[in-house]
C-alpha cells in the first residue's frame, strides 16, 4: 500500500532554482527521506533488480526467437500473394519518401505564428533513433540479405529526402507548400489501390490481407471515416431539433452500451441478412464498417465535450457578424471545439488501434490472428511468450508514438503559446 510512505505526501513541488542540490542529496530526498521510505525503496530496487535479471536471462538464454524470425513475412502481410508483394514494397517506399519530404519541408518553413515545434521535437535524436532501429531490426529479425538491403535503402531514402528538403526546402514557394497536406490523402488512396488492386493491377481479395498490413488498414480506415461521423453526430446531439438530437442519442447509446465484440458479432452474423442479396460486403469490410461506426459514436462524445467547452458567446458573436450557422460552426466554433477535443480524439484512435485485435476473435487474420495461427503450427508450439511479447512491444510503440504526437500537436495548437 502506498499510504505507508509517510510524511511529505504533498504533491511534489518543483524545487526553487537556488536550492540546487548534488545528485547525492537528490537521491536521498527522492528515495531515503524517511526510514520507511528507505525500506520501501530498497525493497522495490531489489524486486526491480530480480525482475530485470530474470527477464535478461529469459530473453537471451531461454527464449527462442526463431518463431519471430521465421515468420516475419507472415506477421507483416499475412498470406498476401508472394508475386504481388512488390506493390507493398512500392507503397512503403512512397510512404518513406512522403514522410522524408514532409518532415524536411515543415522544418524549412517554420511558422511564425506557432511557437511549439511539431513532433519529433529533437530532429537529431529522432534521426538517430530511426537510423538505429532501421539498421538493427532487419539484422535482429535475420531477414534475408536482399530484404535487409531494401530496408536500408528505404530508410536512406527517407533520411536523404529529409536532408535535401530541409536544406533547400526554402526554394519551394509557400503557395506550393499549401498542397503538401494533399499529398497524404493521395498517398492513402493510391496505397489502397496498390493493396487491393484495380486500375490495371491484379486484384488481391481482402481475405488474403493479413498481419500488420490488415491491422493498420483497418485502424486507418476506421479512424479516417469515423471522424466525419463523429462530428456530424456530435452536432446532431447538440442540435435544438428534437429529431436530430434523439436519433444521435439513440445511435451513441446503442453503440456505447454494447461491447465491441457483440457489435462485430452483429456485423458477421446479422448484417448479411439486412442488406439486399449481393450487397453484403466481404467479412473483412464488414468488420471495418463495424469498427468505423463503433469509433464514430465514441468520437461523437469527445467532440461533444469539445463543443460544450466553447462559450456560447462565440457562436453568438459569429452570428451577429453575419455568418450563417454552418459558416459560424465551420470557421469559429468547430476549430476551437476540435482543438479542445484533440486529446480525447487521439485517445480514442489509440484505443481503436488496440481494438483491432478483436478481429482475431471473429476469425480474421489481423496481427494477433496471424500470431495465433503461427503458434498453432506444431513447429512453434508453446512459443507464446516470445510472440505475445513481440506484439506487445509493437503495439506499445505505435500507441506511445500516437500519444507523443498528440501532445506535441496540442502544444502547437495551444493559442496561449503563440506569440500573437
Amino acid at each position, binding site marked *: 500500500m502506498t499510504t505507508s510512505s509517510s510524511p511529505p*505526501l504533498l504533491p511534489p513541488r518543483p524545487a526553487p532554482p537556488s536550492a540546487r542540490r548534488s545528485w547525492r542529496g537528490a537521491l536521498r530526498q527522492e528515495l531515503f527521506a524517511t526510514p520507511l521510505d528507505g525500506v520501501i525503496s530498497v525493497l522495490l530496487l531489489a524486486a526491480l533488480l530480480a525482475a530485470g535479471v530474470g527477464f535478461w536471462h529469459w530473453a537471451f538464454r531461454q527464449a527462442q526467437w526463431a518463431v519471430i524470425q521465421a515468420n516475419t513475412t507472415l506477421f507483416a502481410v499475412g498470406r498476401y500473394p508472394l508475386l504481388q508483394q512488390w506493390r507493398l514494397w512500392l507503397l512503403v517506399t512512397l510512404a518513406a519518401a512522403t514522410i522524408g519530404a514532409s518532415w524536411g519541408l515543415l522544418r524549412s518553413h517554420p511558422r511564425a505564428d506557432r511557437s511549439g515545434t511539431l513532433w519529433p521535437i529533437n530532429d537529431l535524436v529522432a534521426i538517430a533513433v530511426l537510423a538505429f532501429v532501421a539498421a538493427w531490426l532487419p539484422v535482429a529479425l535475420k531477414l534475408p540479405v536482399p530484404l535487409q538491403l531494401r530496408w536500408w535503402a528505404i530508410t536512406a531514402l527517407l533520411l536523404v529526402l529529409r536532408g535535401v528538403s530541409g536544406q533547400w526546402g526554402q526554394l519551394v514557394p509557400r503557395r506550393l507548400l499549401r498542397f503538401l497536406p494533399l499529398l497524404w490523402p493521395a498517398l492513402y488512396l493510391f496505397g489502397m489501390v496498390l493493396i487491393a488492386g484495380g486500375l490495371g493491377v491484379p486484384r488481391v481479395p481482402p481475405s488474403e490481407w493479413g498481419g500488420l498490413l490488415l491491422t493498420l488498414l483497418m485502424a486507418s480506415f476506421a479512424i479516417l471515416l469515423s471522424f466525419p461521423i463523429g462530428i456530424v453526430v456530435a452536432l446532431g446531439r447538440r442540435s435544438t431539433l428534437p429529431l436530430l438530437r434523439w436519433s444521435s442519442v439513440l445511435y451513441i447509446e446503442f453503440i456505447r452500451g454494447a461491447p465491441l465484440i457483440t457489435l462485430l458479432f452483429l456485423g458477421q452474423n446479422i448484417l448479411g441478412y439486412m442488406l439486399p442479396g449481393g450487397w453484403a460486403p466481404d467479412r473483412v469490410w464488414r468488420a471495418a464498417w463495424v469498427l468505423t461506426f463503433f469509433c464514430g459514436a465514441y468520437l461523437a462524445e469527445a467532440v461533444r465535450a469539445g463543443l460544450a467547452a466553447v462559450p456560447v458567446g462565440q457562436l453568438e458573436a459569429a452570428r451577429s457578424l453575419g455568418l450563417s450557422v454552418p459558416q459560424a460552426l465551420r470557421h469559429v466554433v468547430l476549430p476551437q471545439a476540435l482543438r479542445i477535443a484533440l486529446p480525447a480524439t487521439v485517445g480514442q484512435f489509440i484505443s481503436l488501434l488496440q481494438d483491432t485485435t478483436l478481429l482475431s476473435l471473429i476469425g480474421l487474420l489481423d496481427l494477433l490472428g496471424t500470431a495465433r495461427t503461427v503458434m498453432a503450427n506444431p513447429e512453434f508450439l508453446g512459443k507464446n511468450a516470445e510472440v505475445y511479447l513481440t506484439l506487445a512491444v509493437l503495439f506499445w510503440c505505435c500507441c506511445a508514438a500516437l500519444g507523443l504526437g498528440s501532445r506535441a500537436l496540442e502544444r502547437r495548437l495551444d493559442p496561449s503559446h503563440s506569440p500573437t
Partner: protein
Amino acid sequence: MSDIQRVPWWRDRRVVPWLVQGAVGVAILVVIALLLGNLVRNLTAAGLLLTWRWLGQPASFDVAESLIPFDASMPYWRVLVVGLVNSLRAIVVGLVGATVLGTAVGMAAFSGNGLLRRLARVYVEVIRNIPLLLQLLFWYFVVFLALPNSTAALQWPGVVLSKSGLYLAWFADGFQWQGPTLVNDVWRAPLRLSVEFSALITGLITYTGAFVAEVVRGGIAAVPRGQWEAATSLGLHWSATMRTVVLPQALRVIVPGLNSQYISLAKNSALAVAVGYADLYSVSETTLNQTGRALEVFLLLLGAYLLIDLVISVLMNGVNQLVQIRER
C-alpha cells in the same frame, strides 16, 4: 411590403427546422425500412424468423464452470443464465480489484518516494498502450498455463497456485477458517478459482486498474494545494489529511470518472471468450453455432449488457450523490 423583399419560404426560420427534420426523418425511415424489410424477408426465407421457442430446448453442451447447477440436458435459457452469472461474477470481482489497485497506484503518484512515483507512472503507461486482449492471452497462456502441476504447486499461507487453479482459504463447514489441503495429489479448498477465471480477472484488474489510477490521480490533483497545507498546519497526520480533507473533495471528481471505467470493464469482460471462460458472450456464441438464431442471441446479448451498464450507472449515480458536498 413588396413581394421582392419577402423571404422565400424555404429560408423562413419557422419552416427550415421542419424541412431539415423532415429530410433527416425520411432518410432514417427509408434506411431502417430497407434494413428491416430485408431482414424479415431473408430470415423468413431461411426459416429463422424471430421466435423464442428454442430457448426451451435442451442445450446439449456443457459449461466448464457454473455457480448454479447445470448439465447439458438443461434448456438454452438456463445456459444463458449460467453465462450471465459467470459474467457478473467476473465483473464484480474485477470492479473491486480494479478499484483497490487503481486507488493504490493513483495515490502512489503523490508519494514522497521518487521510485514509487515513477513506478506508478511506468505501470500506467505500459498497461494503457497494450491491447487488453493481448494482455488477457498473455496472462492465460504465458502465466497461468505455465504454472506447475498440483504436486509442485506454488504455496503461500492460505493460497495455493497450480495449473489446475487458484485455491484460497475461506470459511467452510459453519464458519471455520479452512486452508487448501492436498488429498491424493489433488488440492481441495473451500474456494477454488479456475485458471480461466483467474487469468480473466487478473487481466481485467491490471488493465482497468491503470485507468482507475489515472482517474484517482486526476481527482487528487484537483484538490487545491492549500487544502493539504492547511490540514498539515493544523497538525493533521498524512493519513488523517488524506481521509478527512483530501479524499472527500477528490471523490467528487473521481466518482463520475469511475463510472465510465466500470462500464468499460463490464463490457471488456466479454473478452473472456478468448481465455475459455464461459461468460455470457462465450455461451451465446456456442448457442448461436448450435441453433443458428443470430438475431435472438444478439438481442439477448445487447439487452443483458445494456442492463448491466444501466445498473452500474444507477449505482454510481447514487454514490455520486452521497459524495457531493452539501453546500448551505
